[in-house]
């Protein structure tokens, strides 16, 4: 029987910052993301979309509310389990790529498997496969500094998918790229989506939002439905 539980389920999630003068970044967010779905979270700068992504990515904890990832209540998990989820079930793509400049492209991709505790024997082969999948199979030994912005983001995507995550979280993945390169990255994301990967994209770019199967709008920390 097919699993009908949403892959990501948020209920009443709020996030406050600061103690003396608390700032509420998220206010009672409810959100479901189904398996194999691509969702764009669109909002202006400071609307709380990155905070939302951080909570879904187990990088941050909600001040209140509940979060279930693949049916598991994440809110009550220990740091070690949350780190385990990040290493094995969640893939991240950042606007500024976050590649280690002193490591080769191949090593940057392999780094993702370092904390998963998996079988290290096939790590190189899996990293090469991931690089081939993003069209960089011919430059495994290159340093990130030798690559263009689009190529760097492709390396970051290879790093994100090499662990075969359940969900891919993209924080402004094309924010630092020109329109041509953006199109290439979106094409690559489409391939991943077609292969069955659940993708959540945070963006303020309506073009990128249009790429997604579904878009939700976030304003002042609250989901406002379709933009």
């Amino acid at each position, binding site marked *: 029987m097919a699993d009908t539980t949403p892959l990501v389920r948020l209920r009443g999630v709020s996030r406050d910052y600061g103690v003396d003068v608390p700032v509420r970044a998220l206010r009672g967010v409810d959100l479901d993301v189904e398996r194999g779905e691509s969702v764009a979270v669109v909002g202006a700068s400071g609307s709380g979309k990155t905070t939302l992504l951080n909570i879904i990515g187990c990088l941050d904890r909600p001040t209140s509310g509940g979060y279930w990832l693949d049916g598991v209540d994440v809110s009550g998990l220990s740091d070690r389990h949350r780190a385990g989820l990040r290493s094995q079930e969640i893939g991240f793509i950042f606007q500024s790529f976050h590649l280690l400049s*002193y490591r080769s492209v191949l090593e940057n991709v392999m780094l993702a498997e370092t904390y998963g505790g998996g079988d290290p024997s096939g790590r190189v082969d899996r990293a090469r496969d991931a690089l081939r999948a993003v069209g960089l199979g011919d430059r495994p030994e290159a340093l990130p500094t030798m690559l263009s912005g689009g190529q760097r983001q492709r390396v970051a995507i290879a790093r994100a998918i090499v662990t075969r995550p359940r969900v891919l979280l993209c924080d402004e993945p094309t924010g630092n790229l020109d329109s041509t390169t953006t199109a290439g990255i979106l094409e690559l994301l489409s391939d991943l989506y077609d292969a069955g990967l659940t993708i959540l994209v945070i963006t303020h770019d309506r073009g990128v939002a249009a790429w997604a199967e579904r878009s939700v709008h976030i304003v002042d920390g609250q989901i406002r439905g379709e933009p």
Partner: protein
Amino acid sequence: MSVTPTVRPRAADKPPVSSMSARDIVFESFAGMFARPGRMLLTVLGTTIGLAALVATLGLSRTAGQQIIGRFDELAATEITVTSLPAEEGRPSNDLPWDASRRVERLNGVVAAGTLTAVDVGGVLVSGSAVQDPLNRSAFKLPVEAASPGLFDTVRARVRTGRLIDGGHSLRADRVAVLGPNAAAQLGVTRIDGLRSISIGDDVFLVIGMLDSVQRKHDLLSSVIIPEGTARRLYHVSAPESVVAETEVGAASMLSRQLPLALRPDAPSGLKVASPEQPQRIRSGIESDLNLLFLMLGGVSLLVGAIGIANVTLVSVMERTGEIGLRRALGATRRQIATQFLLESATMGAVGGVLGASAGMLVVTGVAAYQTWTPVIDPLIPLLAPVVGGVTGLLAGLYPAVRAAGLEPVEALRAGT
């Protein structure tokens, strides 16, 4: 474009935990260190200098100490002094015989022997000038010692000018004197070529020589030394006060037992033998004093090295904030981050320890070669140096590692953007 299967099959309801193999931790730490080779070398240099200083100071203290102790031992362990004990009531006196030197010299293992007696001159002053100048003091209360000719060899006396007392002087009871350098300076005697004389009370003595130095019985440097026979005749000395013998190395212990029998076979228990046992305590005292001093110096050097490591590791943590954020996003736990940074600092410390130990030993060997000393170093020191370096690195990296581990992934990622 072909894309690999992306979704991992769900294993169980239990969420996974982050884990990192030891091999990966080591690999990541080394990669982190070699990311900036120049900085790594400078960091290692700090520990290297600290540990080189520590090893060198410990080695030099040991080498110098051994040198001092060696010389000390050579003199102390080969010296025996025999004196007579006061006789019990109603028993004959325990006086040393006048031929004590000859009796002792006959024994196997004795290098030289001589008698030494403090002469009671009745409190008279010693004067370096026949003319009494009321404005300038020219007469002093100086110790007068009677010595047999063999004593000078025994105390390894060096003559500055003139000659020493011989058997003829003693036999004839000649009124001659040898001055210690301090006594000569006090009496204003600088040369003896003009038949220089001194007076002990009303008795005039011809100065035949002046000492330059002695290696035993340093009181002689401030004394007026006259022949034994002269002391007997002029000051009625009844018996020698002490016999000093220099023995061959290793013979002192046995000779300590033989000497009383050779000197007074009739009453050996009436003599007191000062054998070189006491110097053992002095020797360990010197060694521990030197070690403490140099350990303190080395400790300070090491502390400086540790502060260097701590500083560089802290700067490294701050510079690598973005990397820490990325690693946390990829599933690293706080403990794994801390372990990586600790391993980096400990490794740099240990490498510094190896290099420092090598450099320190080179310094010890170089100094010893220059001074023609025998280099002495505890074999444990070069072996322990990398451990000390590693522990130093570990301690120095503790705060930066805790700080790295304490970074929130979101903030670290933001800071590293």
